[in-house]
């Protein structure tokens, strides 16, 4: 008989992991929602966030400063990506395709620049902020995981507030709905695109720096969260922030539970299969906002 306590424990762990996953996935869905572009460099932004956080830590000696450092650096990197690469491809006939190639190329470039630099020579890490394990009844919680979850929730809450209550958020929603009409109403869509890219990248960068104490930082660290974010975004519904959040928690739980009983490769295969099944049964995902 399957140990119920063990499963429950894994469900809790999965929820904690899902919060961190949401941080990566929401950025991906945000860019798609506003610009209709799939950013293949999203995993690279995660990786760059890890390194920016590491460098900030090395320079200041304060692990808490690593987070704002990562957010700032990767926010700028995201804006530059939009300005230097995506903007030039957006108005082409085959913009979707061209953007995939362009951002994919960028991801490969960033990864290999880091790999070639002294930074990439060894695995880097950041010190844990909240060490220890908390015991609650029969369950155990790694304190760092809970802390990461809380930070992720705060960041996502901030993002929601921006989207919902600020002029910037209103402009983002307007551009997402209808670029031309938004333009006619005086929204400077080019600027909105760049800022959206920056915000999305910053979320991935934050995740990269947050997860560094647990997963280490190395040049190809971004691909795994990127692929996971893919699954989440598809299941949650491309472009739907709320659906993505729910899907992230679901996938987090599914992954944790599956990891208890199978190998990591089998778990990944299961998750990819789940995504494909969802795509066939309900291509719009949980959130159901995409229009192709």
């Amino acid at each position, binding site marked *: 008989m399957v140990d119920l306590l063990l499963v429950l424990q894994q469900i809790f762990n999965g929820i904690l992991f899902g919060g961190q996953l949401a941080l990566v996935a929401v950025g991906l869905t945000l860019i*798609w929602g506003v610009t209709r*572009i*799939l950013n293949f460099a999203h995993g690279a932004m995660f990786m760059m966030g890890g390194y920016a956080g590491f460098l900030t830590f090395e320079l200041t000696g304060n692990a808490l400063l690593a987070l704002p450092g990562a957010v700032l650096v990767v926010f700028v990197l995201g804006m530059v990506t939009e300005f230097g*690469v995506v903007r*030039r*491809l957006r108005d*082409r*006939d085959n913009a*979707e*395709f*061209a953007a*995939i*190639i*362009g951002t*994919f*190329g*960028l*991801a*490969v*470039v960033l*990864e*290999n*620049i880091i*790999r*070639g630099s002294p930074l990439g020579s060894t695995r880097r890490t950041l010190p844990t902020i909240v060490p220890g394990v908390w015991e609650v009844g029969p369950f155990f919680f790694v304190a760092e995981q809970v802390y990461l979850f809380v930070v992720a929730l705060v960041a996502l809450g901030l993002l929601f507030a921006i989207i919902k209550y600020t002029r910037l958020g209103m402009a983002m929603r307007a551009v997402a709905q209808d670029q031309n009409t938004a333009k006619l109403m005086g929204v400077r869509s080019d600027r909105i695109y760049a800022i959206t890219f920056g915000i999305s990248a910053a979320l991935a960068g934050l995740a990269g720096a947050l997860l560094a104490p647990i997963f280490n930082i190395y040049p190809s660290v971004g*691909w795994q969260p990127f*692929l996971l974010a*893919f*699954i989440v975004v*598809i299941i949650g519904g*491309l472009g739907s922030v709320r659906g993505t959040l729910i899907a992230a928690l679901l996938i987090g739980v599914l992954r944790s539970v599956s990891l208890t009983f199978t*190998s990591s*490769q*089998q778990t*990944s*295969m299961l998750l*990819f*299969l789940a*995504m*494909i099944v969802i*795509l*066939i049964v309900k*291509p719009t995902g949980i959130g159901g906002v995409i229009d*192709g």
Partner: protein
Amino acid sequence: MSLAESLRLTVSRTQTRLKEDLVGPKGIIAAFGILLALAAPFVLREFQLSVTLQILIFILAVSSWNLLAGYFGMFSFTHAALYGVGAYATVISAAEFGIPPLVALAIGGLVAGLFSLPITIPALRLSGSYLAMVTLAFAEIIHLAVITFRDVTNGPTGYTGFAPMFGGDRVTFYYFVLVLVFVLLIVQYALLVSRFGLIARAIREAEDAAQMLGNDTYRHKLVGFFIGSALAGVAGGLQAYNILIISPPMLELNQMIQFMAMSIIGGLGTFSGAILGVIAVVGVAELLRGVIEQRLLIWGLLLMLIILFFPDGIAGSTTQRDILKQQFDGFTDLFGDTKERDK
């Protein structure tokens, strides 16, 4: 001009264009290239011959991706994985079941083609970014499966030490690859100048329009994907016999990056582009060997710069694309208008 007339005109113009390509200056250059390739074993050293073999095999793999991505507009990330599947199927059927290598190659192609079916049947209902995502996921599944199912694939160690083709005679193997790749290129070319190829391009430019003209676009995409994947599988089988070792890295994203870079640098959607791209990239890579260790960095940079500044690649002459585009714009505009009205 009616829609049907417009399509007919497109068909006849494109056919003339492609025939000109074949018998015109490009044909002569191609013939010259063939002569050079035939003479290669007499003038090249062992190492140079293996680079030439590599070029030939990649030409097959890249041209088959170009068939999907360049002509149908099906942007598949599964190609390297299927190339790997072909390699595994070939080696396993030859080494484990004692099937003659020549037959094993055909089996490799067939298995890769069959593997493409569970991908395409759901995925071809999607397009653009969705297709890219799903095919990337499938590539990951296949890659993980190869690592996981050790009983069949030997896991991460892969296969090595299997018997080479033609008793290890490299020159015979070279001619065999040359002839096989040449024949398969001709087959692809014939396919692309046929009605099938024209419908492929119609699907790329405006799938709805192609469908409304009475073409079963889903079936065409399915067949196209099968053929492209099978050819990738054959290329994988040849590569297995070229390097005499296969392991999971053959199916990795890096391999896919390489194929994509070659195809896009050469010129996506042009037949000569697939060939020129491989020669250029492998040539540059071999020249850079030892000079720069960061070959992936160069590929990534090239991918970005080419898509930013030379979206048509080496072979893509703008005039040819413009002519095609004008013709297709004719009827896509028609449908674009009705769509706007419906809103």
